[in-house]
């Protein structure tokens, strides 16, 4: 019989993180990947957080295929042909231990997978798991589409992504509602390294991320982003599926519009689009995190909806959840019991970690913003108007400008209502 200690379904960063920890500990672990190889089906904006990765592989940057360390994070509130911008640049981030990096997931995941194999994990590519094998109320294995395709293990870890078929089949969570999922699309624009460094004003090898709000997503809830890689600029946007389908605009048109925006276009001018990706991202936040542990089963990463939509973090949550699940297994392994109670330290650990704490902090924010389009289509543009008003030198005194700004800002939707809406959002993020 094909019996292993642990089967991990999905070789993304969540699954690989779990596999790495388990294999290092000498556990007999097998990872099932549906793609040609790890990374071939993965899409991510391309920011990899240093700390969570280093908790797994110390000083990984010496070996891993990375694009650029990020030294500056910018935020743009976009108007039609205006932008209010902010940001933080720190040259400490250009040196070890760094803050974060841009990566190509195709290359990075393949490298990460090779580390797992070195550690002793078995990775089976091009193999689709269709359901968990359940016996007497306990998950005991996985069924794949291959001949003789049943595989057994003490514990199955589901890391099969946002649409987690296996978690759904187990009844852990239902189909996502369109308001819980964002569609992210991204293009890679090829440009010479020197051009990238000039246009983004960084030294050789350094990188920048820009988060764009407002007009970048046509006022729909979501953000757009521009990341610098070695010889590519990633540009993309993510919007809630629910709002996208209401607006009747195709994702591709949305991205095209962003690329043609007069403030964005100079950054990518002359570059050739070489890749196009589309991917669903769970954005349901705290409220849609499913049950994480069952008898003989744990859920990690996107499959567990562990994505912080406000800070656009996902891969770090995936890595942490993978590591915590693996650690929980190791305790259960010593005891030799794999029921829900024995695996529940994973759920406890993750609740106490930044992962769930952060999601909890913003648990209502996404919902509030989604319910009330004014945040994205009224207040954000108003910030631009305010900046324009305040900074235009036209002979009017600053005090009267401030008054006008406040009037405009709140005037759109009425004073009391606006004040309430701002407070409500502020409270949801406190």
């Amino acid at each position, binding site marked *: 019989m*094909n019996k292993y200690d642990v089967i991990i379904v999905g070789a993304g960063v969540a699954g690989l993180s779990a596999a790495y920890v388990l294999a290092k500990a000498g556990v007999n672990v*097998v990872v099932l990947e549906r793609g040609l190889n790890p990374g071939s089906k993965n899409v991510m904006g391309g920011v990899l957080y240093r700390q969570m990765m280093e908790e797994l592989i110390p000083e990984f940057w010496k070996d891993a295929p990375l694009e650029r360390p990020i030294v500056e994070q910018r935020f743009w509130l976009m108007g039609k042909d205006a932008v209010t911008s902010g940001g933080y640049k720190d040259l400490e981030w250009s040196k070890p231990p760094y803050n974060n990096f841009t990566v190509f997931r195709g*290359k990075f995941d393949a490298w990460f997978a090779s580390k797992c194999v070195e550690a002793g994990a078995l990775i*089976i*590519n091009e*193999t689709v798991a269709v359901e968990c094998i359940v016996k007497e109320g306990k998950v005991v294995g996985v069924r794949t589409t291959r001949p*003789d395709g049943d*595989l057994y293990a003490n514990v199955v870890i589901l890391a099969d992504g946002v649409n987690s078929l296996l978690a759904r089949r187990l009844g852990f969570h239902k189909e996502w509602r369109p308001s819980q999922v964002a569609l992210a699309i991204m293009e890679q624009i*090829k440009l010479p390294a020197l051009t990238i460094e000039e246009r983004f004003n960084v030294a050789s090898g350094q990188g920048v991320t820009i988060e764009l709000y407002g007009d970048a997503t046509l006022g729909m809830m979501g953000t757009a982003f521009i990341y610098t890689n070695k010889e590519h600029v990633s540009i993309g946007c993510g919007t809630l599926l629910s709002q996208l389908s209401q607006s009747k605009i195709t994702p591709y048109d949305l991205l095209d519009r962003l690329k043609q925006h007069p403030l964005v276009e100079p950054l990518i001018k002359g570059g*050739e689009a070489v890749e196009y990706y589309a991917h669903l991202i769970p954005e349901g936040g705290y409220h849609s995190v499913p049950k994480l542990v069952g008898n003989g089963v744990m859920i990690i990463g996107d499959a567990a909806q562990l994505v912080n939509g406000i800070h656009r973090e996902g891969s770090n949550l995936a890595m942490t959840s993978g590591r915590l699940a693996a650690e929980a297994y190791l305790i259960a392994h010593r005891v030799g019991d794999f029921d829900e109670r024995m695996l529940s330290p994973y759920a406890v650990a993750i609740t106490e970690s930044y992962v769930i704490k952060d999601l909890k902090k913003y648990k209502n924010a996404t919902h509030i913003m989604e319910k009330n389009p004014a945040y994205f289509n009224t207040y954000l543009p108003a910030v631009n108007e305010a900046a324009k008003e305040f900074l235009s030198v036209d002979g009017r005194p600053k005090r009267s400008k401030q008054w006008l700004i406040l009037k405009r800002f709140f005037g759109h939707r009425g004073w009391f209502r606006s004040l309430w809406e701002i407070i409500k959002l502020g409270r949801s993020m406190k």
Partner: protein
Amino acid sequence: MHIVVCIKQVPDAAQVKIDPITNTLDRSSAPAILNPYDEHAVEAAIAIKKQFGGKVSVISMGPMMAKDIIKKCISMGADAGYLLSDRSFAGSDTLATSYILTMGIKKIMEADPVDLVLCGKQAVDGDTAQVGPGIARRLNFPVLTYVQKVESIEAGTIIVQRKMDNGYEIVSCPLPCLLTVEKDISELGYASLPEMIRAAKYDVITWGVNIIAADTTKMGLKGSPTSVRKIFAPEERVGGEPLEGDIKTVTGILVSKVMEKLS
């Protein structure tokens, strides 16, 4: 019956892009796959093994990354996989490649005589179809190219169908010999999970230049008679202005243009 199959890792042709500025290939984005013709060759070798017993070995020349395709062949049912990998192999053209592969096959033959060598009819990244016949010459095996079917193997003689432009010919040849095969030679199977696991666990045998006792002057850029002088974008044909108007008029114009051309 010992069958050796020569395989190559190629970028998925459908996904290779060209950099419009530098006119160089952007191969990074294209996933590397087992050359489709070679995949059929491996499957054909497995079928022969199933019928006559014996052993299937696969051999490839390439970087360490090419272990992936060797493992794929193991999952398909191959018994052993050899990767010839050495820095001095880099830049080899078809003549040098056929030399290196031949030395590898000879090394395999030392331990286990070979009855049949199979190659895909060509690699989809180079389309040259030269390495197979080249290996046959160097091994002094008769070569049968474009084989679409193995009809029989009996008393040391193989009878095959060779695909021609307008049909096929049936040819007999004593073993050992080398075949290059069409996709028609076999139907691709779907590996079972235990086979996938066996392949994932399989340790590919890697040989460098010293192990195969090859002459380094016959390989790499120096040992290759051909070299690429330049790479350029194919000339684009510039067309005419679109014909516009209602269907009757447009087709009318078109018909007269065509008739003019044909008269």
